[in-house]
């Protein structure tokens, strides 16, 4: 058992994946000598060389477009997008090429590409550095989307994503990069595309992923003081969604709240609310509620605490759900 920050766990996971498979190539801006702006690739270029840890030109479409060609040649590119808001120059390659080539070629051209994106706010950054673009990718057939919340999931998840034969958008909660937890690197990890119940409860089912998992757990602890028993589920996989444990939970609790930082309208919460309603209609005591970012551009950092869901907004939604 080792105590690791989430960032260090990613670094160790990447190192392990590179040791295990010589075809793994890391690509991105400033990921070599600098080790990435968040130091996630720290030391990897020194140990694996410039052909395997590529400091790319400053061109995100180029990162993803050349990753396609490398994948055609049998490589497993792991692309770092420096910040969430910078993924959009690469959006064309991701959506029209990376996502579709397996289908276009009827499986002849697998695209085992991992797109690492530090996402979410709460770090006091300037514009384009705090966004949550997951719904765009979850809406795109051919991609898979996962979000990690803990050092252990970061360590194993990045390795599982790299080993996957499909393209994966791998979302890293940047404000949690420095948070620590124990990681048993010898453990057998859960499957990548599986949600996980983090805390059992009987009164309400609270769903979160990425940076909001910690917030959800804090809300459940706070609610306990008021005598409410909240079940917390870390969704972990956003596409495909894995909601079997959620359905089982909601059938017991009758109430469901979904939390994410992304704008609420047409966010993951909307899809989850629809599915929970379709599947658990007769068990529901209240409509599925969403707690998300507002439908505004991500605000200047002095206002981000007003924008982001926090403990109080989650508890407010719990109150509203219980009040039905």
């Amino acid at each position: 058992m080792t105590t690791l920050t989430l960032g260090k766990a990613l670094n160790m996971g990447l190192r392990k994946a590179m040791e295990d498979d010589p075809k793994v190539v890391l690509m991105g801006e400033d990921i070599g000598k600098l080790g990435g702006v968040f130091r996630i690739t720290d030391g990897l270029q020194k140990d694996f060389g410039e052909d395997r840890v590529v400091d790319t030109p400053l061109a995100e479409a180029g990162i993803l477009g050349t990753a396609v060609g490398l994948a055609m040649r049998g490589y497993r590119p792991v692309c770092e997008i420096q910040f969430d808001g910078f993924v959009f120059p690469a959006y064309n390659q991701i959506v029209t090429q990376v996502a579709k080539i397996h289908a276009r070629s009827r499986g002849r051209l697998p695209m085992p590409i991992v797109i690492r994106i530090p996402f979410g706010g709460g770090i006091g950054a300037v514009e384009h550095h705090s966004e949550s673009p997951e719904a765009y990718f979850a809406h795109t057939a051919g991609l898979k989307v996962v979000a990690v919340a803990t050092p252990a999931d970061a360590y194993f998840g990045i390795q599982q994503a790299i080993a996957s034969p499909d393209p994966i958008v791998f979302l890293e909660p940047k404000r949690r990069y420095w948070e620590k937890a124990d990681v048993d690197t010898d453990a057998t990890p859960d499957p990548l595309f599986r949600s996980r119940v983090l805390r059992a409860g009987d009164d309400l089912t609270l769903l979160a992923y990425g940076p909001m998992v910690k917030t959800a757990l804090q809300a459940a602890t706070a609610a306990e003081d008021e005598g409410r028993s909240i079940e917390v589920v870390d969704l972990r996989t956003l596409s495909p969604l894995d909601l079997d444990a959620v359905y089982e939970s909601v059938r017991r609790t009758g109430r469901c709240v979904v939390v994410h930082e992304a704008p609420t309208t047409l966010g993951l919460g909307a899809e989850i609310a629809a599915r929970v309603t379709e599947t658990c209609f007769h068990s529901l005591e209240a409509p599925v509620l969403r707690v998300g970012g507002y439908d505004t551009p991500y605000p200047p950092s002095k206002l981000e605490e007003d924008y982001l869901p926090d403990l109080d907004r989650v508890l407010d939604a719990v109150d509203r759900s219980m009040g039905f």
Partner: protein
Amino acid sequence: MTALEHATEVVDPVPGTGAPHLPEQPDSGPEFVQLLTPEGERVEHPDYAIDVTDEELRSLYRDLALVRRWDVEATALQRQGELGIWASLLGQEAAQVGAGRALAPDDMAFPTYREHGVAWTRGVDPLHVMSLFRGNDMGGWDPVATGVNLYTVVIGAQTLHATGYAMGLQRDGADAAALAFLGDGATSQGEVNEALIWAASLSAPVVFFCQNNQYAISVPIERQSRVPLYQRASGFGFPGVRVDGNDVLAVLAVTRAALARAREGSGPTFIEAFTYRMGAHTTSDDPTRYRMASELEEWKLRDPIARLKAHLARAGIADAAFFDAVDAEGDELAVRIRTGTLEMTDPAGTEIFDHVYAEQTPDLERQRAEFVAYHASFEGEK
């Protein structure tokens, strides 16, 4: 009606559309590589010699003639409702056959959606291209086995794929290169500029083969560039060459040299094949709205097939019997393409679910089952 007559027919001038767009006259000097004049005369170029046997010359002619015959048949099939659309290569046969024939077996071509001539030279079954334009699939050929990537419709996106593939070749120590096809319009795309920067910066073994056919659908080259396209390469830091795109020998020589340069580790080359799209952009297009018939008439004098035929006949390399035999082979090919297209069976509806992922998701498994059950619910109904 021949393909050329057909093209003439659709390019009738529209009164009142103003001055005709006239193609930029290419240099006749060393900046413009030509080995076979429009009249079919062999000429020398100081940098690009080509040593071809008579047999190779005849087989180049055969390729040019057969891809044109294929193209004519495909256009006819579209007019008869058997294809959804067709992107004609009429006029660009020499550029495509010359580039395709320059490839070595281990090289990889990254076409746009018009490179039927390249596909032909690599042994792609024309029916695997027809199935795409019929709407049966996205291209039925095996990209790995044929060394021809599937057609890429988003303009310029494939130039980055080719560059990445070339990065893979570098890492593998392979004696091979990637050949990225693009058009004049694509040179305005940001992704193409990224590809040129990456290729230069990484000295990747990739050749950019730009067919400047003078138009991006309706928009002439002047709207894409104020300098001849081949000159852009110097700004990226690698050689640019303008070749007569209607001269199959020059295209073959220039592309061979560029690919050899890439394979030996000297980095990318940008080739501008100066040519002309004699037909419409696709069968959905109407060139009479944006260009004059006189322009086409001028380009017909530089027809890529006529000049090689003139050379072969004049030099005694091929006789009437040879040309008749190629014509007959073209007609047989056309019959095979027509018959094969008409006999294509529609794909099963469940195919839409089957290749989205390498590892199928539970969601798609469920949707597939629902699709099957839904359609089964109509069984027995008339």
